[in-house]
């Protein structure tokens, strides 16, 4: 059966946390458009990375509701469940930037760990023994597996070995989600995804940061020698994988999501420079001159690479785009959405940016 047909006529009330963020907004868009009978409630605290401008195209849809709020507030989440009687939670809300986790780990503990437990507790409280058709889906990262050498891949059986406060907080929340499955029988699934890129990503992350700086002819800060390797996935493909796993993933299971698409940071930056030079009609090599090597990030993991064969084989998912296609789309999106970029780069982000890079 083609994915989704079976579900088009089902009714569900789905809480998506962090739905105004980068990955969340793409997921919200997919669900609101694909499942008109689902009630999608997007809960987001709209801190710096959550941005309702990401969702203007779906904000008037009948099956969509936005609520601003904090997942760590127990009474608030309790009342949200009273009001909407969710049968599904897709939990993306998280502090996600590794550099920020190094500067301020406690925020990550509160949002990522305490917030997750609060959602687990509240789901358990309201679902009680009526667990058929219930699902708690935790969206996580491949960073929980730690760092790889030059060879090998993370599989779902790789032992957790998180290295940064960010990945430690996500590992902790993954463990807690699994613990609630084993201890209380809560129906859960977890997915761990590689690095995402695409439209609407906040420009503190590598790709939009580089695009923004190339655009403004500002230095392109590259950590260390730029030899760290990351596996990149187009965000819409991540949302498609979440859709698959949400509907077809086996209760209690974990799925890795990735695109077999490894890049050394420096190669990726140079490729971006080339694309941008072309699109901005600059002389080839112009943007590469902006590359500035900065002191490496503390505890910078060398390489992430993910084996997503379980997802590909069991649930028949595969990336829809090749990396150069995704790259192209992404650059075009940022070039066509300069207002969005200007809006998110003003204020708080500027201060943060200075602290993170200019002093190095």
């Amino acid at each position: 059966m083609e994915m989704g047909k079976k579900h088009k006529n089902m009714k569900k009330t789905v809480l998506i946390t962090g739905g105004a963020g980068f990955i969340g907004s793409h997921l919200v868009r997919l669900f609101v458009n694909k499942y008109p009978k689902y009630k999608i409630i997007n809960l987001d605290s709209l801190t710096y990375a959550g941005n309702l401008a990401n969702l203007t195209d779906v904000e008037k849809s009948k099956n969509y509701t936005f609520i601003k709020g904090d997942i760590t507030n127990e009474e608030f989440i309790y009342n949200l469940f009273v009001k909407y009687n969710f049968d599904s939670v897709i939990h993306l809300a998280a502090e996600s930037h590794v550099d920020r986790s190094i500067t301020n780990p406690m925020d990550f503990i509160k949002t990522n760990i305490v917030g997750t437990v609060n959602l687990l507790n509240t789901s358990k409280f309201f679902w009680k023994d009526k667990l058929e058709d219930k699902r708690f889906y935790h969206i996580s990262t491949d960073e929980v597996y730690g760092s790889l050498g030059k060879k090998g891949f993370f599989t779902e059986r790789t032992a957790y070995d998180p290295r940064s406060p960010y990945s430690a907080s996500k590992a902790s929340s993954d463990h807690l989600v699994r613990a609630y499955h084993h201890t209380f029988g809560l129906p859960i699934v977890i997915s761990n995804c590689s690095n995402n890129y695409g439209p609407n990503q906040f420009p503190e992350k590598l790709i939009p940061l580089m695009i923004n700086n190339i655009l403004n002819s500002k230095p392109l800060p590259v950590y260390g020698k730029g030899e760290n390797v990351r596996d990149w996935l187009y965000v819409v493909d991540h949302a498609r994988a979440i859709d698959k796993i949400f509907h077809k993933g086996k209760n209690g299971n974990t799925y890795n999501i990735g695109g077999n698409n490894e890049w050394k940071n420096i190669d990726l930056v140079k490729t971006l420079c080339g694309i941008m030079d072309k699109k901005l009609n600059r002389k080839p090599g112009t943007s590469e001159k902006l590359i500035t090597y900065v002191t490496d990030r503390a505890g910078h993991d060398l390489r992430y690479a993910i084996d997503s064969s379980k997802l590909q084989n069991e649930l028949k998912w595969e990336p829809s785009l090749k990396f150069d296609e995704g790259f192209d789309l992404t650059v075009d999106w940022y070039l066509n959405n300069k207002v969005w970029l200007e809006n998110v780069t003003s204020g708080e982000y500027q201060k943060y940016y200075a602290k993170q890079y200019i002093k190095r």
Partner: protein
Amino acid sequence: MKVLVTGGAGFIGSHTVVELQNNGFDVIIVDNLSNSSEDVIDKISQISGIKPLFEKIDLCDEEKTKEFFNKHFDIKAVIHFAAFKAVGESVENPLKYYKNNILSLVNILQNMNNHQINNFVFSSSCTVYGQPDKLPVNEKESIKTPLSPYGNTKQICEEVLIDTINSQNNLKAISLRYFNPIGAHKSSLIGELPLGIPNNLIPYITQTAIGKRKSLNVFGNDYNTSDGTCIRDYIHVVDLAEAHIAALKRLLEDKIEEKLEVYNLGTGIGYSVMDVINSFKKVSGVDLNYQFAPRRSGDVEKVWADASLAEKKLNWKAKKNLDEMLLSAWKWEKNIKI
């Protein structure tokens, strides 16, 4: 959702803890065990399958209470049962009652304010009505001069609560005025465990029936009632416990219409002492040894509740009748192994 139950090892407290756990709440009990035993905590775990957190603390101890709340900063609501409750003793030793019942409330409210815990359920009593002018008595009935220091502590506590609520932005509370809670959990693992000579009718009846007491004194048979004995509104303790869950949810869901709401909890039916004795005989098969004795000071003649407000607002109604209440109390008495 973590809920503090003070006096959670006591009679009403323990039954409420079980219902809270059945509803998925995480419970922490504070009790000084002055009128209860730690065994009750184990019995609660046997019934619900979940051992509640328990700390033996005297809530009159300001420092200990403060430490407790600092440690358990994630408490979201408090159900406050802890209090001395013997009418006769309160007449003999009023300061013990004023100190314990009022100071513990003050300490709790102070700490709730410090930690921004905003949901409070208070155990009050129909004694605040004294002998009401009209029956059934509803929540609008004026508060009468109390007939005992115990009754007075409940009145003063309600006043402390009103003043505190009026002075704060976020605190909200429900005060539940119990009529006469009796009976025991169907498991017969928890029930009323009076220390020494019971003050209340039902444990006196069951203890007499089982042979712990020689005979039952019925205080007064010359009241202006059909058979001359006092009339009360008896309510099954599990029904009562369920009302606390309804009250707690009303607070958590912000459905309250006033910052302090007051509800009568009773069945709405009054039974005389003789009705109770007859019903007990019917369900237990035991012919009680009893005699009439002079009226006891401080007893009102008759009182029963108009509990329609609780039905309307809390969507709660007592379900168990007098026979069921007495049968459960009798089973419990037979199961007490002390």
